[in-house]
């Protein structure tokens, strides 16, 4: 037992003997993790973060200050405090704020946890504290918060250069910048809150498979008989217009949806205009036939030769996608207006085609961008249930 403590705490072990923990101090004043919360329902847990009325960055930082001021001599329960603070970050809307993470790390004392010898260094000196900060760094990574070099200084002052959190920090500083712009479908940061803007982003992302795509914004109000008054973000490329005009007048086209597309945490409902799948031409020209090269005398554009008839990206196995859209209400009425708009906008063939609406029960809401109030309300009811 003693050896174990010796390894963990090194030569400073003699100090422990002189210290005594006041018996009346609550062992746990902060919640550690949700699993414990579930299992030990008998334990009464006081979570000061939950009691805060006005949840924002200022109050969050205030909470940290309160903790620091409460007993700045024998500061105890850092780890528990940090875990609790981490848990509530989203509620306060500070989960993407580097400054907050830095002030959380600042809670730990400087110098105390720095290993003094090789054995301490090797066997994770103060493991609970180190693990806590590692968890904090993980949460930063999950929220795409890139640390700065000041944080390195903090971690070095707390855990020394052999500490695991510092190593974790170094790895993060190596990889995170590399991943930052790796997405082939970048979104603006921060993401707009407005569903209309989100819908535009979503439809742009879906339809950018075709370079000739064009995003058009229609208003249902422009259609005389429409009930709803909302916007329609419609995406249709020149190729799709051409494909639609070639649709056999006997074959109906289908308005299908809603399907969902995710933009970070938010999902947007969208609808497609689909036609019957086209037969696939499997024949190809033998590429070895080099005696059949055509040389045109008059063309000014670089010639293109394709030995197979490549279907366009819109011609899928289950059908040909003629257009996509997202509307403000996702209602059948707004989709009808969409079709009318498309017909006016250079797809006159739609007037003569049978159009089938195969909609699943559509929500009234197009997207679930929760406002702060809604979320709080929801959580309050959940807590109330418990």
């Amino acid at each position, binding site marked *: 037992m003693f050896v174990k403590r010796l390894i963990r705490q090194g030569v400073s072990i003699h100090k422990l003997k002189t210290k005594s923990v006041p018996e009346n101090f609550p062992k746990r004043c902060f919640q550690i993790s949700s699993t414990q919360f579930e299992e030990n329902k008998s334990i009464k847990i006081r979570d000061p973060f939950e009691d805060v009325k006005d949840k924002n960055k200022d109050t969050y930082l205030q909470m940290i200050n309160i903790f620091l001021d409460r007993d700045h001599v024998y500061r105890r329960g850092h780890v528990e405090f940090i875990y609790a603070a981490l848990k509530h970050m989203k509620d306060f809307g500070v989960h993407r704020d580097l400054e907050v993470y830095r002030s959380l790390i600042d809670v730990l004392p400087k110098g105390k946890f720095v290993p003094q010898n090789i054995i301490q260094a090797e066997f994770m000196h103060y493991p609970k504290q180190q693990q806590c900060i590692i968890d904090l760094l993980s949460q930063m990574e999950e929220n795409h918060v*890139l*640390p*700065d*070099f000041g944080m390195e200084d903090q971690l070095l002052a707390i855990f020394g250069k052999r500490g695991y959190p510092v190593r974790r920090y170094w790895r993060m*500083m190596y990889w995170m*910048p590399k991943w*930052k712009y790796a997405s082939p479908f970048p979104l603006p940061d921060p993401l707009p809150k407005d569903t209309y803007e989100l819908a535009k982003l979503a439809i742009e992302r879906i339809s950018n498979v075709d*370079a000739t795509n064009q995003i058009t914004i229609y208003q249902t109000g422009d259609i005389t008989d429409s009930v709803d008054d909302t916007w329609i973000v419609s995406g249709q490329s020149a190729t799709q217009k051409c494909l639609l005009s070639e649709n056999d007048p006997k074959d109906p086209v289908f308005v299908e949806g809603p399907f969902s597309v995710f933009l970070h945490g938010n999902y947007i409902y969208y609808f497609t205009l689909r036609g019957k799948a086209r037969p696939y031409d499997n024949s190809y*020209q*033998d*590429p*070895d*036939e*080099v*005696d*059949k*090269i*055509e*040389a*045109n*005398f*008059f*063309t*000014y*554009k*670089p*010639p*293109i*030769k*394709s*030995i197979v008839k490549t279907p366009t990206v819109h011609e899928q196995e289950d059908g040909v996608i003629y257009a996509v859209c997202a509307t403000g209400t996702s209602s059948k009425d707004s989709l009808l207006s969409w079709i009318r708009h498309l017909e006016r906008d250079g797809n006159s063939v739609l007037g003569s085609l049978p159009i089938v609406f195969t909609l699943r029960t559509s929500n009234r809401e197009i997207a679930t961008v929760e406002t702060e109030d809604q979320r709080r309300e929801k959580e309050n009811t959940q807590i109330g249930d418990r």
Partner: protein
Amino acid sequence: MFSLRFKKASLNQYLLKKTLQRLYATSIKPIEKESTSDEEFNRELKKYDRLTNIATRTREKKPQREPFVKNLLIGQFDREILTFPEMELEEVRNVEEAVEKLSQVLQQRHMVNVNSIGNKNFRQNLADHRAIGLQSSQFLDGRECCPMELMRFLDTLSEHKLGNSLLHNEMLGVQTLNKFADDNLKKKYLHSVIKGEQLSAFAMHEIDVMDILKMNTTAVLSDDKKYWTLNGTKSLVVNGISADFVIVFAITDKAHAGHDESNSLTAFVVDKSTSGVSWKKIEPSNIEMADITFDNVQVPAENVIGKVHQADKILRSIIGDFRLSAGPACNAISRRMVQNLFKHIAELSTTEYNLADTDAMKSKLGQVAMELYAAESVTYLTAGLQDWYDEQDVEVESAIVKVFTSEAAYRISTICLDLVGQHATTTNHWARQAHEEILDYLTVHETNESQRMFMALNGLQHAGINLAAKIKRIRNPFFNATYSLMRIFTEHRQNEDKPKLDLELNAHLHPSLSDPSKQLEYCVKRLEFGTERLLARHGIECINKHADLRRLADIMIDCYVCTAVLARSSRSYCIGLQFADYEVLAASIYCNIAMERVRTEVRNLYFTEYKATDRNYIAFGKRVVQSKGYCLTNAISRFF
């Protein structure tokens, strides 16, 4: 070959009969005209004052040869070409004399100051010296030049600032009528153009139409088959403002348009005074250009040039010659620039500091002279091929002339701008004006980029037909195992960039050109290798490898220009022309540069998958397309 016989023809019936038979030999008129009475002969005779001065040329062209440059791609070098084509002494003397006179006329003050081709006196002055209708029949007061003479005349005409306009009139308008129009049209339009009374314009291009066979101008024949109704807009019509009539190309057979190369286009002569024709000047530009709109213009059926639906043949022939004619025009500008550059340097030289004697200036003067020499050689070699051989296929060669001469002139103009420096800041300085003049040759009508594609594709088409069986074997190694294994040994010299030089070109050249001829052989061998590689690697899909096609075209240009400079300098040296030793020097410089360039180009073709720049350019370009523009962050940005 040619022998030129001048005969003072007395007015005897025999000659008259013979000449008129000759005149009507190409006619599509009904036959009964031929059996006209002697009185009618006399009446015809009075129209042609100059009948007594007609020079008859007994044309004895050599039989057609295989296309030269196209054959280079399959490794066949026609050594006959190395004897640079030349004209008879008598012909040369006559041309030089005429050119001298024309040049003097063009230098007269009232001619120099003319700013518009619309000036009738200017044109009539030229017509008096028979400088319009150079290739037209002498019965229409043309000159009936052979291609090499034509080059010399065009060279002289291009010295005038309206050279480009004259060239368009001559090579497009006059030549279309001359080659393809029937006698009525010739009499009505061609003769008045040659006389300088009228001016032609050639309306083929449309804005935003990249394929001529898919143009938007259409013509429909009326029910009584008396007139065509023409609709559409032609853009970039050179001389479109001053012209009296326009030669218009229109789609007349919609069913075939764009699909079938033949059977869709028809050419018309349209008077600009016809109702429904309107035009708008394109400004500002160095050369007179207009957009011409045809709105339900009625064109009489007899104004069709050539056969209905067959105008693509007209275009093919006329445009081919037009490409060639860009050669003398660009060379004239280049020559003027070299002269002016020397003058400029001489002016700056003083006794204390002799600028003209510094290496800095001498090396640049040598470079521009070499460029000009190469450009001249390639122009006259191509004209000579047309001249010497019957119906010679010079499609690719003409395109090479256009690309090489215009780019040589462009390079010379940038060198001039570099050396002239601050003097060229004013827009009316000669260096800047010449630079802008050259830009017209690079931009109007066809770009050099499209010409390169044209060259490479035609070459590959020819090579593909000849190499089809071989390529099939190379592309299917498992079916032809022994052949593939053998190729390891037969091709190892090419793979190591050390081809065996066994064409023996030096046997056809002066011995002092032996080393440069080896360099040409190397280029030709590598061209063959590059072609085979390209076809074997991509098969018929090589059409899509535009970056490789461009490189192939560059190699073709280098090979052909090398041939031209070697042939010309060898001929000059052998017959002892003045400064022939410097011609040899110029030829060896060019071959040296070309060989290094070809070495790199072929390496780029060969390594295309691994370390060639093209592949990486394409990858980068793809990103630029995806990002819809330049996408890289600025040099000082950081985010942590």
